[in-house]
């Protein structure tokens, strides 16, 4: 769509500039006009507006406070409201933030890796000068990434720590979600957001109650997905092997083959059971009604393919070909049909039948992780507060996952028209996430100060 309009983009920019100008005067504008403006915006290059965003809106201080993890230099001018929680002076590692890799994506998909900054001022200067379309955050290396060539290959320049990250993209749900068939990508995935709400609920619970993490940041990816940053010190210190293990632990859905979802691992594990019981089953009726899951023939087939008894499946298919019951009612029919069939069977067949509603729920609604992103320390992930070039939406942290809606995310246009600000988002990011995390961090650094090995025997080599 965008490419069709490319040749008119100059024209569009001119209109947009004009539009912005009128809005500056506070003129009201009707909905039709607003809509036209948005379309022009989507077609024009976000890039042209980014300098303004980076000049006035991007929260450099907050990002720095987060990523310095208490190693912030005291010269930082913090906003008056934020209470500065810092570690004791002697434990401050001034090289910490400068060892973090940033990657800029410049116009034309040019990746510039291994950028690093001494402090917030340098970061601000670089971002304002180069106006990246996207900023990615990498690991903290053993040395300043910009001087990596001074170290011999593979020995001294290695990733030392990195948040445990998770990437979930709605395109991975295209085989089940209702909006996938629609051409209007942005709007359709907004309607399908229930999948992301479920994903956040499931993973947040597992990360907290199973793995014991506390400082978990969810961020809207700007289009149709979410990113997760687990920032506990313990998570940041995990090596690649442990990361892979955690990713595998959290991965239940492993792709679709020949129209059937493939699930992996022990599905009877208490954590999977709990996720079904406490999260997925309560959400399920609402989601399937919203998605008309058992009313659309393709998704009906997806569900029926997971019933291990062909007779039961075809009876249901038959029954659902008529009438117009809503999906949650049909789901009850499915559950009782399966239970009935199971009672007349024995052994494994009965178990398989009885479990199949759970299998269907997991297949459709369990978070579909891009595990490769999670497995390695040395993997980049887009920074919060970037602007998605296609939608113009800001990748804001998701503070209340239940109520978050992507269409309510601040847009570049809204910011530049001064209809909205990021203030609320930034201050909640700081208060709800960064400050509690830093308080814990400071505490842990106290404990670690003598630099003694913490695990008996483990560090003796």
């Amino acid at each position, binding site marked *: 769509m965008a490419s069709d309009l490319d040749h008119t983009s100059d024209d569009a920019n001119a209109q947009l500039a004009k539009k912005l100008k009128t809005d500056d005067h506070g003129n009201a504008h009707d909905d039709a006009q607003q809509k036209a403006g948005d379309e022009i915006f989507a077609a024009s290059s976000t890039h042209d507006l980014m300098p303004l965003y980076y000049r006035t809106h991007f929260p450099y201080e907050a990002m720095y406070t987060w990523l310095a993890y208490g190693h912030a230099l005291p010269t930082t001018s913090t906003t008056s409201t934020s209470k500065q929680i810092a570690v004791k002076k002697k434990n401050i590692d001034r090289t910490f933030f400068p060892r973090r890799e940033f990657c800029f994506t410049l116009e034309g998909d040019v990746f510039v890796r291994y950028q690093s900054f001494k402090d917030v001022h340098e970061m601000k200067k670089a971002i304002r000068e180069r106006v990246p379309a996207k900023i990615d955050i990498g690991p903290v290396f053993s040395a300043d990434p910009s001087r990596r060539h001074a170290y011999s290959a593979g020995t001294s320049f290695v990733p030392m720590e990195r948040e445990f990250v998770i990437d979930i993209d709605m395109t991975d749900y295209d085989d089940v979600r209702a909006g996938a068939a629609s051409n209007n990508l942005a709007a359709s995935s907004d309607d399908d957001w229930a999948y992301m709400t479920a994903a956040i609920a499931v993973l947040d619970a597992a990360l907290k109650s199973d793995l014991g993490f506390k400082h978990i940041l969810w961020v809207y990816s700007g289009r149709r997905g979410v990113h997760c940053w687990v920032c506990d010190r*313990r998570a940041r210190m995990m090596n690649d092997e442990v990361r892979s293990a955690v990713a595998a632990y959290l991965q239940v859905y492993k792709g679709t083959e020949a129209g059937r979802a493939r699930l992996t691992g022990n599905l*009877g594990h*208490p954590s999977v*059971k709990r996720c079904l019981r406490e999260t997925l089953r309560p959400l399920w009726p609402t989601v399937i009604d919203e998605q008309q899951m058992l009313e659309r023939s393709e998704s009906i087939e997806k569900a029926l393919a997971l019933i291990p008894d062909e007779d039961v499946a075809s009876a249901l298919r038959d029954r659902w070909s008529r009438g117009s019951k809503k999906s949650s009612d049909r789901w009850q029919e499915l559950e009782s049909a399966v239970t009935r069939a199971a009672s007349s069977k024995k052994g494994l067949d009965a178990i398989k039948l009885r479990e199949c509603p759970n299998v269907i729920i997991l297949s459709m609604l369990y978070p579909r992780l891009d595990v490769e992103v999670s497995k390695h320390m040395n993997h980049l992930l887009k920074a919060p507060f970037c602007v998605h070039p296609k939608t113009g939406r800001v990748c804001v942290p998701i503070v209340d996952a239940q109520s978050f809606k992507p269409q309510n995310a601040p847009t570049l246009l809204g910011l530049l028209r001064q209809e909205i600000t990021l203030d609320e988002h930034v201050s909640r990011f700081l208060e709800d996430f960064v400050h509690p995390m830093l308080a814990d961090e400071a505490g842990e650094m106290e404990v670690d100060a003598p630099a003694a090995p913490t695990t008996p*025997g483990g560090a*003796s*080599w």
Partner: protein
Amino acid sequence: MAWVSTARKPSSALALESSILHQNASSSFLSMYSNLPSSDIALEEFESLAVNRLRLLKALEHAKSKGRRDDELKSTLKTLMDRHMTADASAERESAMTMAQCDDFGHHILRIAYSRNEELRKWLVTHETLLFKLRFRHTLSPSERERFLATNELPYEPCSNAELDDVRDDLVQLLESTGKKEEAAILRASGGGAGAATTPGPSAAATTTPGSASASRYAAARAYYKVPFEEVPDLVASRAVVLHRGNAYVPSESLVSLVAGRFRARLAKALVMTNRALAAGVWADEAGRVAPIAAGLALRYLGPAIEGEVGANSQQMRVQDLPKAATEHFPLCMLTLFQALRRDAHLRHGGRMQLSLFLKAIGLRMEDALAFWKGEFTRKITAEDFDKRYAYNLRHNYGKEGKRTDYTPYSCQKCLAQTVGAVGEYHGCPYRTLGSAQLKESLVENMKLTPMQAKQVAEKAQQGHYQLACGRALELRRFGGEELEENVMHPNQYFEMSRKSELGVEGGGDGGGGAAAAAMEVEVAAQPVTPIAR
């Protein structure tokens, strides 16, 4: 000529590593290898110990990659240990070395040989850990295990019954989900009313709580060890363990994972330190003596005798024979690149590297290589352009430019490690990079398999056994589906195996009885035994 002289010098890599170790002598034969060997060995023993150790590990790797489960490897392990935990007798030595000594020396020598790069370190860590795990499981009695934990300062104590209450329901559920109904019932019962029965004393370890009925039931059940989840990644990954607030509750029969995790972590760390010490020249005075042997040992593994030089492994390859050789004998990874090159008159950097080094090793000389690549590329770009942009790199691969290293062709491991995905990139391992449908299509079209055979191969790839999948494709295509003893570890090795089939010479062991160990003898022995110097 005694090797131990290196250990006595405080400046040696090994001594450096040992200086921070606790110095308690291990009495059990299974070892965490915390201490350096303290007796002398002769230089020739040094090599034979290492080669034997290598044979042992490679045989295990082979058996494992054939899909044998750990408990099926018990007898294999015993055979292999008897056969390979030995040293060739030295003139200086009067009595033969004990198995324990061979174990100790063999392990420590391979550490030196396999520390120099990430790929080698990873291989050694994986396979030494496998050996350790098998030995812990199959050669130690319960009391020996306890003694092992104690002597190696692995302070794992079973959870008290009270501690288990936090997670009892989950543990029961996990047992039930894996079909262990009886044990689940015992565990559940030991929790019922435990609050009353167990003395709420500060250290009420249930195993020692006297007299109570629930405690004795508990004792009859398994013990659980509560550890940070990072210590048992394999159990976490397979969801074989209950996690609660960052702790894993490891049942006693999985204790081996726990100990092996420690073993793995220590070894990985030790290898990095050894490498650093070697790189820093700590061992410079041994450069002329031991270092070449160590370096040779590492090279010896990298693909069964695949060398970097042109035609080291085959006779010369002529440009006009390439198309036929490609369709007949190239593994899928190279065939895919070859065809992409012919179709697009271009390959991207990763593809050029992977294919050109492969071609070099099957005997394509540099002049011919330049002619071949130029011929393909100049269908789209000018000859001048080619000379300017691509010729240097090709000559570089042949060691004629830049730092003049004669680069070795990619092993399967290296191909698998490639990051692929951009448009127009065809390198890496297709068994990994292609989707299932695409792979099947390619197998039918390019490897001339039937759709059924392609499905069988693709299934292996789906399960993550990329090299087995590749090996299976070779067996089906060239050996009438007969199982080969030799695994595909290297594209060039594949090529040689495939070519041999044409000459009527069977690759690998000649159907020898299925004993993995016997086959491995052939593979390792096929390499020069007194080689080394690079």
